């Protein structure tokens, strides 16, 4: 397959560009932050995105979706990275949809996917229990109590945990932390008795939460997939999340670069534009080269995921690792090359580093994915 966007994907990219520029520029993020918004985005934004059909991009056609694939979805993630736009798209339309499509039974698919496509249901994925991503180290328990399961435990860094209608919760039903076997995915209403949601205010101004579960009763019918065999679905859902995060980081890296390049052509010191100094030219040229590599590696991994390639997992770890590295380079260089003004809250360039780091860390940072790539490659 040619490593370029097809016509439909290109159109989606352009429509996303226009949408975010008009309805969710970086100034909107500032407004939400300054207003202390709990969601981290304007109320009207998500219904608009749903109207554009974006909630349904990954949903199969037989469930009312568009079957447009990850390459398509990533065009939106990338543009949202450029404008630093928060929305339920990631937790609901990417993670939630992927998990339900992979593991849901017919009834769950019919109910939940339709509701997501029309914008009446939002989800949040609850996995990690410590400060680092470790999807095998799940200790939260589910005990069988008659027809129900009783859930106890705590989940951290739950993206959209403060606003979601339902959680997809990874729970240990057998074995011990570290085992692949024994992880089960449950669907839990956020309003269920015993669910306590503590909104955490994060560096990127987004909606994240610590969610604790005390003796929460969940019916057996709310298991997503098979008992004890949830890790395969979880892992695939994380892959989908990680490649979309990579696309978002690509947007952040490009926008940081574009804004800084513009600044190098405007800012004068010593009677010359600072972009005329070779010390900065070489750094900018190296940085640009790295961003070019990122474009290729993200698109390659997206295509391999859509094609169901067996190497997709390794490709995605390559992409996430590379994007973590280059997003870090990009947001650091952006501040340094802007100089003092880059340190001010008034100037927008500093917003990019604040979103980049949480996006890097979510579902595994550079070290996690470089290590995973090495393990998958047998060394």
């Amino acid at each position, binding site marked *: 397959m*040619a*490593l*370029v966007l097809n016509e439909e994907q290109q159109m989606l990219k352009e429509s996303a560009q226009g949408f975010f520029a008009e309805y969710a520029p970086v100034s909107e993020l500032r407004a939400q932050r300054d207003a202390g918004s709990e969601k981290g985005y304007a109320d009207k934004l998500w219904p608009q995105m749903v109207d554009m059909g974006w909630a349904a991009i990954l949903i199969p056609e037989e469930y009312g979706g568009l079957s447009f694939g990850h390459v398509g979805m990533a065009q939106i993630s990338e543009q949202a990275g450029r404008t630093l736009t928060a929305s339920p798209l990631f937790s609901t339309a990417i993670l939630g949809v992927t998990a339900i499509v992979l593991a849901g039974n017919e009834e769950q698919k019919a109910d939940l996917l339709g509701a997501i496509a029309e914008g009446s249901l939002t989800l949040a994925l609850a996995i990690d229990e410590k400060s680092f991503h470790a999807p095998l180290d799940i200790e939260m328990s589910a005990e069988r109590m008659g027809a129900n399961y009783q859930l106890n435990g705590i989940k951290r860094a739950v993206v959209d945990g403060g606003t979601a209608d339902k959680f997809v919760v990874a729970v240990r039903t057998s074995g011990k932390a570290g085992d692949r076997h024994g992880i089960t995915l449950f669907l839990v209403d956020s309003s269920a008795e015993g669910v306590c949601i503590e909104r955490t205010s994060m560096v990127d101004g987004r909606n994240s939460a610590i969610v604790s579960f005390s003796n929460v009763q969940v019916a057996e019918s709310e298991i997503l997939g098979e008992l004890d065999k949830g890790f395969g679905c979880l892992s695939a859902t994380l892959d989908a999340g990680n490649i979309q995060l990579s696309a978002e980081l690509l947007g952040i890296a490009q926008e940081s670069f574009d804004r800084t*390049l513009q600044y*190098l*052509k405007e800012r004068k010191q010593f009677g010359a*534009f600072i*972009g*005329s100094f*070779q010390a*900065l*030219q*070489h750094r*900018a*040229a*190296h940085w*640009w*080269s790295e961003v*070019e*590599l*990122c*474009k*290729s*590696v993200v*698109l*390659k991994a997206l295509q391999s995921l859509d094609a169901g390639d067996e190497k997709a997992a390794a490709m995605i770890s*390559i992409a996430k*690792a*590379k994007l973590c590295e280059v997003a870090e380079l990009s947001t650091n260089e952006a501040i340094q090359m802007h100089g003092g003004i880059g340190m001010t809250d008034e100037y927008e360039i500093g917003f990019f580093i604040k979103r980049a780091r949480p996006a890097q860390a979510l579902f595994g940072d550079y070290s996690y994915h*470089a*290590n995973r*790539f*090495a*393990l998958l*490659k*047998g*060394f």
Partner: protein
Amino acid sequence: MNNLETFRSETRDWLEHNCPKAMRQPARPGEDACWGGRNWVFSSEDQKLWLERMAAKGWTAPDWPTEYGGGGLNKAEHKILKSEMRRINARSPLDSFGIWMIGPALLKFGSEALKQQHLPPIVRGEIRWCQGYSEPNAGSDLAGLQSKGVDMGDHLIANGQKVWTSYGDKADWMFCLLRTDPEAKKQMGISLVLFDMETPGVTAKPIKLISGSSPFCETFLDDVRVEKDQIVGDINQGWTIAKYLLTHEREMIGGMGLAGVGAASLSQMAVKQLGSRHGILNDLMLRADIAKWEIDAAAFAFTAERVTDEVKSGHGVGATSAMLKYYGTELNKRRFEYIMKINGSDAMVWEGDSSNDGWAAKTWLRTKGNSIEGGTSEVQLNIIAKNILGLG
């Protein structure tokens, strides 16, 4: 069957019958690649046969027009030929600066007479070419070259010194930059000329490198007669062609980096040499370095793929040859630093059968030149900054 499918099956059939078995494996680096030329000694009868058969079809230069001896293939057919050759692991029948560099320049800028004279012998591997660009005082600042060509009416008299002439001692003809108008501004007074290395006054002396090999020469020009009909394009207008050729050279060197990148993986070599426990390489710090290198190498290979696909689909060039040259050569240097670490003291051996005559050490040292030849990494960064980013 459509035309391309027919072409594929005919090509497969022809290769099956015509590519000698011994030519169905990569040439050992620096040993049995075929460069052709007047003084070429074939390393085997198969090497000779393979060159002759491919040259007869014009497939040493598959996409050149048939009237100059080329294969006349369109892009799709050329791609099929390459993939069919890869399928049986067939090596290139001819490595040639004629095909890679001066040939494309002649096709684009040369007169009909020059094309007729020079292209067919290049295709047949009869004439080997070298490049006379750099001078002792004109390396990165190539346009500062001082070798002169003085106009004598029907010919020029050339004087000066060239350096880093690849295989200058083995080549038959040189394409050479001369200053033909000393009064004009730097880039405006340069001509690209062609002459036979046997012309009186031409002397090529090999330069021994830190790697022990001598792939380059210094070439002295003392009152060398150059016919005026051997000027490519117009007199004093050679800089445009020179830059075009440099782009080709960058692509070529960047491509070599890519070939290295695609070669046997560092991680497999490391596991073999250093061992692993529970699937994890024994040296953890080196493991992290190798993982990073392999991630970068994969991203670079995908970028080369994307750039090619973008050109094909008419999206224009995203990344340029300058970036591929810069990144590819830096990656290749890193690759050999890791190969040295992976192989420990064995890698430091300079001579002897056990070390394949110092292959690791010598190749490692040779890679240090990758980011110098064909425009240093710093020059490539200048090109990116100025031409792509618009930083003045």
